[in-house]
C-alpha cells in the first residue's frame, strides 16, 4: 500500500515538476525579454485554444447525440451496449489519463510564467504603495508621494504594497498584474512598462462605499522626463535645502531603485 502511495506521489511530482524545473532555470534575474504581460497573453492564448478544443469536441458530441438519438416511437428503449469489465476500466482510465496529461501540461506552463511574475528584476524601480479608503498613495522615498504612478519607460517597476484600513487589491489591467493590498502585511507585484502611455489602475477587492471610485493613472514616460518629474517633486516635497538629502541629481531614478526581493 505504502509503495503505491509513494509511486503515485512520486509520479505526480515528477510529471508536474519536471517540465517546470527545466524552464525555471531559464530566465536570469535581469532578463526580462519576456515581460510578464506578454507572457500572460501567450499563455492565455494557449489555454484558450486548449479549452476551446475540449469544448468543441464535447459540445458537438452532446449536440449530435441529443438530436440523433430521439425516440422515434412510443415504447422504444435505449440501446447503450453493456460494457465489459475491460471497457469499463478503459472508459475510466483513458479519459482520466488525457485530462491529467492536460492538467500537468498546463501546470508546467503556468508555473514557468509564475516564476517570471514573482522574480523581481534586480534593476527594478521600487515604489511603495499605501492603500486606504478610498485612494492610493505612491511613495517614491525622499518625500515624494503622489496619487499617480509615474514610471520611466523600459525600467521594471516593483510595488511594495500595504494598506491602512481594510483589504484592497491593486490591479493594472494593461500590465496584467494584480495583488491584494492589506493591513499588517507587505505584498508585491512587478511589471515592465515597455510602451509610453497612460493606463488605468483600479481596486479589485471590495472595500466599501468608494470601491469603484479609486482609479489611479499609471503614466509611462521617457526616462529623462521621469527624472525631471522626480527632481521637481522632490524639491516640492523638501523645499528647505537642509532637509534635502544630497542625492546625485543626475540619477534620481537610481535612488529609489534598491530592490531587496
Amino acid at each position, binding site marked *: 500500500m505504502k509503495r503505491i502511495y509513494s509511486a503515485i506521489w512520486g509520479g505526480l511530482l515528477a510529471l508536474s515538476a519536471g517540465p517546470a524545473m527545466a524552464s525555471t532555470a531559464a530566465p536570469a534575474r535581469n532578463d526580462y525579454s519576456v515581460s510578464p504581460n506578454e507572457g500572460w497573453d501567450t499563455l492565455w492564448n494557449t*489555454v484558450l485554444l486548449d*479549452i476551446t478544443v475540449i469544448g468543441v469536441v464535447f459540445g458537438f458530441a452532446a449536440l449530435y447525440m441529443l438530436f440523433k438519438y430521439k425516440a422515434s416511437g412510443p415504447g422504444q428503449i435505449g440501446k*447503450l451496449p453493456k460494457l465489459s469489465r475491460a471497457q469499463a476500466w478503459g472508459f475510466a482510465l483513458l479519459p482520466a489519463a488525457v485530462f491529467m496529461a492536460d492538467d500537468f501540461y498546463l501546470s508546467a506552463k503556468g508555473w514557468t510564467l509564475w516564476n517570471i511574475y514573482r522574480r523581481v528584476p534586480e534593476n527594478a524601480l521600487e515604489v511603495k504603495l499605501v492603500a486606504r479608503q478610498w485612494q492610493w498613495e505612491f511613495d517614491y522615498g525622499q518625500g515624494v508621494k503622489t496619487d499617480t504612478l509615474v514610471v520611466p519607460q523600459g525600467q521594471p517597476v516593483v510595488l511594495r504594497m500595504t494598506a491602512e484600513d481594510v483589504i484592497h487589491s491593486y490591479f493594472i489591467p494593461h500590465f496584467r498584474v*494584480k495583488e491584494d493590498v492589506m493591513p*499588517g502585511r507587505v505584498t508585491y507585484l512587478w511589471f515592465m512598462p515597455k510602451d509610453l502611455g497612460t493606463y488605468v489602475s483600479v481596486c479589485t477587492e471590495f472595500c466599501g462605499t468608494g470601491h*469603484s471610485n479609486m482609479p489611479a493613472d499609471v503614466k509611462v514616460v521617457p526616462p529623462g522626463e521621469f527624472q525631471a518629474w522626480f527632481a521637481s517633486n522632490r524639491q516640492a516635497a523638501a523645499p528647505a535645502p537642509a532637509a534635502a538629502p544630497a542625492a546625485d541629481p543626475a540619477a534620481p531614478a537610481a535612488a529609489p531603485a534598491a530592490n531587496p526581493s
Partner: protein
Amino acid sequence: MSLIKEWVFTTDHKRVGILYLIGSIAAFAVAGLMALIIRAEQYNSGLQIVDTQDTYNVFLYFHGAAMILGFLIPGLTGFMANFIIPLQIGARDVAFPRLNSFSVWLFWAGIILALLTFVIPDKPDVMWTGYPPYSVTTAGNTAFYVFTVHLIGFASILASINFIVTIIYMRAPGMGWNQLPMFSWCTFGAFIIQLIFVPVLAAAVTMLLLDKYVGTNFFNPTNGGDVLLYQNLFWFYSHPAVYVIFLPAMGALYEIVSTMGKNPVFNYKAAVYGGVCGIVIVAGEVWVHHLYVAGMPDWLRIGQMVTTLLISVPVGFMVISLWGTLYRAAITYNIAMLYAAACFFLVLLGGLTGIPLAMTVLTVNLSETSFVHAHFHFVMAIFAAFAVFGSVYFWFPKMTGRSADTKLGVLAFWLNNIGVQVTFWPLFIIGLQGMPRRYADYDMFAGLNFEKYHHISTYGAILTAVGAALMIINWIWSAAFGEKVKNGNPWGSNGLEWTHAACPAGPGNFPEDVTVGPEWSAYDYSKFGK
C-alpha cells in the same frame, strides 16, 4: 386552520421538501429582483437607479448571500434531497423526521433574518463573502450576516446527519450500494462534504462576530491577529460548497437523462467511485485558488494550482458518464429534459472557463473581474439552477399529482436559456479587458466602451427575469389547476419512487413495504412499454 397546522408540524419528508422549495424559490425571487436592479444600475456607468453606492452594495450583498445560502443550497440539499431520497431508496421517511422539520424551520428563520436586511438600519453590506477587516469596521450590521449563516448552516449540519444516516440504514432491503440511484449517491457525497466543512464556516463567522462586537482580535493585524485567517477558513468551506451544489445537480441530471433517454447510466461505477468519491476527497485541498492574489506563499499558490487542475479528473469521470448515457439513447423530450439538455452545454462552459481560473498566474489578471463573475454564474446560477428547475418539472407529478403546463414551460425555458447566454457572454469579454466585479461605476474605462456590453447583458437579464417569472407562475398555477396525472409513472422510469408510489405520493410513501432483488436497477428499462 388544520391545514396550516398540518404543514407547520409536519414531519413528512415530502412536505418538508416542499417547504424548502417554497422558501428557496422565495429567496430566488427576491434575490433575482436585486440582480435585476444591479444589472439595470450597471447598464450605464455611475448611479442612475439606486440612490447611493451603499444601497447598491446592500443589494449586491443580498443577491449573493440569498442566492447561495437561501436558494441553491436549500434548493438542492433541502428540497431535492428531502423530496427525492427517501422515495428513491424505498424508505418511508428520513431517519430523524422531527429533526428534519426542525431543520426546515431553522432554514426559514434564516431566510426571514436575511430579508430583514431591507428594513433594519445600518443594513449589512459585506458581500456574501464577508471579508474582514471591512466586515468588522463597516457601519453595516454584520451580525445579520453572521446569524443568517449560523441558522442556515445549522440547518445544513442537521440535514447532513439525517440524510447520511438515512442513506446508510434505510435503503430498501436488498438495495446494495451499487444499486443506489445516482441522485442519492451524489447527494450522499454532498452531505459528507457539508458535515465536514460547514462547522468551519460557522467558526469563521463567529470569530467575525466576536471581533466586531466583543473586541477580540482574530483578524486584526494591529493587535496580533491575521487578516487572511478568515479568507482561508471561509474558502475552506466555500470551495467544497461548490460541490455541495454541483453534486446533487449532476445527480438529478443523471436521473432525468437516463429516464428520458431510456438508457442506463453509462459506466455507473466510474461515476460513483471515481467521480463522487473523488470529488469528496479533493474538495478540501483546493481552497487557495480563491486566494491566488491574496499574498499567500508562492509555493502554496503553485501547489494548489496543480490540485485545482486535477479536479478535472473526478469531474471528468462524471462528465464522460453523463455524455455516455446519451449514446444510442431513445430520448423523449419534456420540459425537464430540455433543462437537462441545456445543462450539458452549461457545465462545459462553466467548467472550461474554470481552467484558466485554476491557473495561478492567469488569475493575476482575471481574478475579481467580470470574467470570474460570468464563470461562476455559468456553474452555479445557471447550471445548478437549471438542474433545480428541471427537477421541479420532473418530480412535479410526484409532488402534486398534476403535470405542469407544457407550452408555458417551454416558452419559459427558452426565455431563460437565451436570456442567461445573452446576460453572461458579454461579461467574459469585458472581464478579459479588465472590468472589475462589484462595480457600479466604471468611468475610468471610458475608452474601452464597456457600456455597450453592459447594455446587452442587462437586456439578457430582463429576458431571464421574464422567463423565471413565467416558470414560477406555471408551477403555482399547475399545482392548483394542472391536469391530473393518471398513472404513478408518467415518464416510464424504473425508480422506486415511480414504480411503487402513487402520484402524488401519500403518507408513508408506499402502499406496501418495498424490497428489491439483486438484479434490480433503477435504470433498467427492459419492462418499459410492455
